[in-house]
């Protein structure tokens, strides 16, 4: 270890992202969708933070807000000690090379009229002064790195398969040697046998280049594989954040428990023994979240206090954060946990 291994690269504090709803005859602002409503977390250097949740919970919005692809409603985002949320456009542009994104749909995120070489070279052309030859060299190196044949640089993206297209997107994200990459559902559009190829590639690149990932996904089993720590989102809030092994072996929040138990098991002998918590109902609308705890309308362990007061997001065990009234008495949990260890 060179310096402090726990140095956070990304620090998010009370991030809020509300989108206005316009309505009525005069298109006045009639409300807002609270896509992300006050979340805080850190990502350490070289770490992968998995961000999981169901569709509409705000996980992609978090990823985009972190790179300031949206103007934040409130809160701060620091990447490498630099406040992204309030940076001027010129400063922000200088910061762009350190932070990149890999998108879900490789078909939609690659320009069909550009060759693969041009796509990968575009960030180089925008941010660096390179001669044409240097650029071509770099593109070739990048293609090698992600496992694409460099002879294919003159081809168009439609000539590639889904998995290969995702590799093109990865090569483009790597072009400027970033420190931090937001992977927004990078494997969701791929077949099972191709998913593993892409995940292994991302892991190899992380090892060789010391990358830091925010890995956004709804696939809990893949997140278990790739992430060091996992954050679970529900309706715009993080309900639980913990090291990977802890959260998968002993989830604390009732939503995390239900979510994990709902994942089907690819082994019939284990599958028949899985105790399922089947949640009733649907996720409430983020424009009109329930009073008190967000999850109180579906929670199997709901109490009176949940419908009145919002739980705070706090550390209940070392490294484990939960936002739930069941864990209000921190000392009691610590005692219980040590008792279980003995």
């Amino acid at each position, binding site marked *: 270890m060179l310096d402090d291994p726990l140095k956070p690269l990304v620090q998010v504090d009370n991030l809020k992202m509300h989108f206005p709803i316009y309505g009525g005859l005069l298109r006045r602002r009639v409300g807002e969708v609270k896509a992300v409503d006050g979340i805080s977390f850190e990502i350490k250097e070289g770490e992968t933070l998995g961000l999981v949740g*169901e*569709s509409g919970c705000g996980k992609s919005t978090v990823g985009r807000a972190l790179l300031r692809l949206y103007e934040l409603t409130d809160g701060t985002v620091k990447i490498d000690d630099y406040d992204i949320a309030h940076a001027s456009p010129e400063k922000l542009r200088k910061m762009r090379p350190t932070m990149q994104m890999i998108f879900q749909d490789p078909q939609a995120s690659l320009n069909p009229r550009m060759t693969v070489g041009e796509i990968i070279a575009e960030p180089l052309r925008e941010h660096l002064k390179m001669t044409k030859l240097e650029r071509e060299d770099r593109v070739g190196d990048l293609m090698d790195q992600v496992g694409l044949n460099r002879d294919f640089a003159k081809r168009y993206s439609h000539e590639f*398969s889904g*998995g290969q297209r995702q590799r093109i997107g990865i090569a483009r994200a790597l072009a400027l040697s970033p420190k931090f990459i937001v992977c927004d559902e990078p494997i969701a559009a791929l*077949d*099972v*046998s*191709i*998913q*593993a*190829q892409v*995940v*292994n590639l991302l*892991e190899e690149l992380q090892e060789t280049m010391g990358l830091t990932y925010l890995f956004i996904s*709804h696939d*809990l*089993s*893949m997140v*278990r*594989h790739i992430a060091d720590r996992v954050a679970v989102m529900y309706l715009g809030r993080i309900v639980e954040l913990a090291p990977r*092994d802890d959260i*998968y072996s002993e989830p604390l929040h009732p939503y995390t428990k*239900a*979510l*994990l*138990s*709902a*994942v*089907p*098991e*690819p*082994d*019939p*002998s*284990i*599958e*028949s023994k*899985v105790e*399922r918590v*089947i*949640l*009733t109902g*649907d996720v409430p609308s983020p424009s009109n979240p329930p009073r008190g705890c967000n999850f109180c309308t579906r929670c199997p362990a709901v109490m009176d206090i949940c419908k009145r007061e919002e739980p705070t997001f706090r550390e209940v065990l070392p490294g484990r954060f939960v936002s739930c009234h069941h864990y209000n008495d921190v000392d009691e949990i610590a005692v219980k946990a040590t008792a279980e260890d003995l």
Partner: protein
Amino acid sequence: MPDGALPVLDVKDLKTVFKTRGGEVHAVNSVSFDVKPGELLGVVGESGSGKSVTMMSLIGLLPSPPADVRHGEVLFDGQDLLKIPYNDLRHVRGGKIGFVFQDPMTSLNPVFNVGSQIMEPLRIHMGMKKTAARARAVELLELVGIPDAARRLKDFPHQFSGGMRQRVMIAIALACDPKVLIADEPTTALDVTIQAQIIELVKDLREKLGMAIIWITHDLGVIAGIADRVMVMYGGQVVEQAPVRELFGNPQHPYTRALLETIPSVRGTRAEKLNVIEGQPPILAGAPAACPFRDRCPHRFERCDVENPLRRPVGPSHDAACHHDFGGA
């Protein structure tokens, strides 16, 4: 699953070819399978493996041209569905064979309320009067767990959430008491917690109604929990078929084995590195003269390049299409 019962649907040697400008694409190649009454057959495969096209061919849902169901027999209810007149076929699908598609938003008509969409098959196939059909529609919505059913008949698809829409689709498919329900990736577009709800619902309905179900998915986890028997497809062919526990416990075909090794789990031990099936799925141009999996297979040998393996028994009610003898059973 009643053993030895006569299959309710028996598909033999089905071949479907798409004619394209680039030549013929052999999407379904000599696919044979059957489903017994009350049985749940899982069909697993990646995109392009031919699982949906197989099901669409057997009830004549593919536009022709470009599709051409070239060969085969589909025995259902004492008749061959590939030979009967169009009007008879119309009464089979939606009547005796129900269909649930992946995306409930695009398969429901947005300009009709769900009540009229559930009543439509009842009036066409069962010849019910409006009041009787409405009563049955309410019953069906209650059956699939939609609260306040009578009032919700007047609602339009966009007023339902994704999971609720899929429940409506299931209600429509069940309307005429089908003998076979074909569910094509019914939970793929849904979130895990909603998927768990739908799976519970289908398990429950099968117990109550006793129809046979063909469940198509790419998710082995879903299959493990719900199927009695599993058929694995690759490159337009059935590569392996076995009872669910046998398939997961004793997979024979190299593709099935590799597929089972690539998927991580949220339970049990966590693998440090994921196993990978190298390469890409095959392009199905031209008649298959070799094993479709040969380019990605770790056990490839000369015979794989010159001869397409036939399915052969490798264990009790277990068959696989591979030249290798893994001596499994």
